[in-house]
C-alpha cells in the first residue's frame, strides 16, 4: 500500500476550512490518522470506473418540489427560534464582527 503523506500545513489548512481549533497534540494525531485512512481508501483505484455515472441518489425520484403557495407548517414562532440561543438582541442573533469600521 502506498503511504500518503500530509504536511502540518495541510492539516492546519483543513482545520481552518472546517472552523476547528486544534492543539499541537491533535495536529500530530489527526495527521497520522488522516494519512492512514487516505492510504486505505486508495483501494478504489483497483476498480475501473471510466464510463460509470456517479450516484447522487439511490432511489428513483426526480425533481421533487415544494407545492406552491402551500401553508408552511414548519414555520417557528420568534420565541421558538430564539429559545436555544444565548446571543440575542432585538430579535436578532448576535454574531462576531467580521468587518472593521
Amino acid at each position, binding site marked *: 500500500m502506498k503511504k500518503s503523506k500530509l504536511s502540518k500545513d495541510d492539516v492546519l489548512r483543513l482545520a481552518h476550512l*472546517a472552523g476547528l481549533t486544534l492543539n499541537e497534540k491533535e495536529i500530530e494525531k489527526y495527521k497520522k490518522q488522516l494519512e492512514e*485512512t487516505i492510504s486505505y*481508501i486508495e483501494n478504489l483505484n483497483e476498480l475501473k470506473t471510466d464510463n460509470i455515472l*456517479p450516484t447522487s441518489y439511490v432511489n428513483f425520484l426526480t425533481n421533487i418540489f415544494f*407545492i406552491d403557495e402551500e401553508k408552511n407548517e414548519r414555520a417557528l414562532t420568534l420565541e421558538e427560534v430564539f429559545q436555544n440561543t444565548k446571543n440575542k438582541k432585538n430579535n436578532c442573533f448576535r454574531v462576531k464582527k467580521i468587518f472593521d469600521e
Partner: protein
Amino acid sequence: MLLGKSLVEISKLIEKKDISNKEVIDYFLKRIDKYDKKLNAYLTVNRYYKSDNFYKMILPIAVKDNFCTQGIKTTASSKVLKNFIPPYESTVTKRLIDASFFILGKTNMDAWAHGSSTETSDFGPTKNPWDLLCSAGGSSGGSAAVVSSYLAPAAIGSETAGSIRQPAAWSGVIGLKPTYGRVSRYGLIAMASSFDCPGPLTLTTEDTAFILKIIAGKDKFDATTTPNEVPDYVASLKKKKQFIIGVTDEYLNGVDEEINKSFYQLVKILEKLGHQIKKIKLLSPKYSISVYTIIQRAEVSSNLARYDGIRYGNNRTFFGSEAKRRIMLGTYVLSYGYYDAYYKKAQKVRTLIIEDFKKVFKEVDIILAPTTPIAALKLGEFDKYPFFGEIMDVLNEPAAIAGICAISFPFGLTKKGNLPIGLQLMGRWFEEENILNLTYQIEKETDFLGVIKKGVKKYPD
C-alpha cells in the same frame, strides 16, 4: 405479568383492561430506576406522563437521542447540544405520538452517531446488558440495550451503515434498517444524509412490522421519501412465502468461527422450511469500506458545519475527537484538487455496488449473511482498531451504500463469552415485507434459539 411482553401483547392487555396505561408506564419507569444506572442506556427519562384520558391506548417506546422531540432535551450524545430543547417534533416521533405512543426516554448513542460502540458518547458508554464489561454496540447502542434488558418494550434507532443492525446483533434483539426513503429523516439530526434511515429495534418480528407500518411513508418535509404505498406489514407476516436465498463467501471470510457455525445452522433450517439456497458472488465489502468512508465523511463535514453555536448549542470547540476527525477527512475529500480523486470516484463505485446488488437480486430474493464479524467487544478495545467502526460494520456497509433494506436478528450465543450472535437478511429496495416474512418464519421455527427471552430474564422485575 408484563416482563418480556411485546408491544402488540401489551396493547392487547390494555385493550382487555387487564392493565391500565398508567400501570404500564409506571412499570417501565420503575425498571429504568432499578437498572439504568448500571447500563447507562438512557440520557433523558420522560417522567411527565399524565393520564388525562383513561380510554385512550398509550404504548411506551424509547427513542434514540438524535430524533428531535419537541420540549424533550435532544443532544445526539454531544456536549455541543448539551442543553438543546428542540422547538419541533421529528416526523418519526410525531407519527408515533399520533398513533398513541408515549416517549419513555431518549437513548444514549455514539456522539452524532459516529461510531459502533457508544464509546464516543460525551455522556459515557452504554454497557451491554449481556455483559457489563462489553459494549452494547452502536451507534444506536442505548436503543438496543433498553430493549434487550426490557427497560422499554421497543425502541427507535437510526442507521447510516450498521447503526441499527450492529447494536441489535451485539445486544441480542431485532433491528430493521428500512430502504432509504421508506422512513422520513425530517427532524433526525443528520449524520450522512444520503444513507440515514430511521428504524425499529424490538423483541419480536411482529413489533418491528407494527412500528414500521406507523413510521413509514411519504413525508412532505423530507423530499427523499418515496410515494410507494405502505403495505400492512403485520398482516403479510402470516403468508407462508418461499424464497430463493443467496449466500456468499465474501461475507463469511474473516468472520468468527462460532458466528459462521450459526450461519450454517440457519442455512440448514431454511432448507428444511422449503427455501432454496443459492451461492452468489458479490463485490468484496472492502470497497464498501472505502466508498462509505469517503462519502460519509464528506456528508458529515457538511452537515456538522451548521453547529456554530449561534442559533443553538455550544460552539465548535465542544466537538469530541471522533467528530473532529471525521470533519477533517470530509473537508479533505471535498477540497479543491481532491474532489475528483476521492468523492467523485467513490460515488462512481457506489454506482457499481448498486448495479452489483441489482444483478444479484435478479437471481435471488434475499441475501443471508452474518451481521458482524465478531460478537460484542469489551469496552475500551475500540482504541486498538484504527478503523473500528468500519471493521465492525463491514458486513453492513454494502446494503447501506445501495440503500436496500436489511434486518438483523439474534441466532445463538457464543460459547466463549455467552454473547449474542446476529445474522441478517438483506432484501430488494422496498421489499421489507419479504425480509420480515422470512424473519417471522425463522422466529416461529426456532424462537431465535431462545436468545431474546434469555436476555430479558437477566433483568427480573
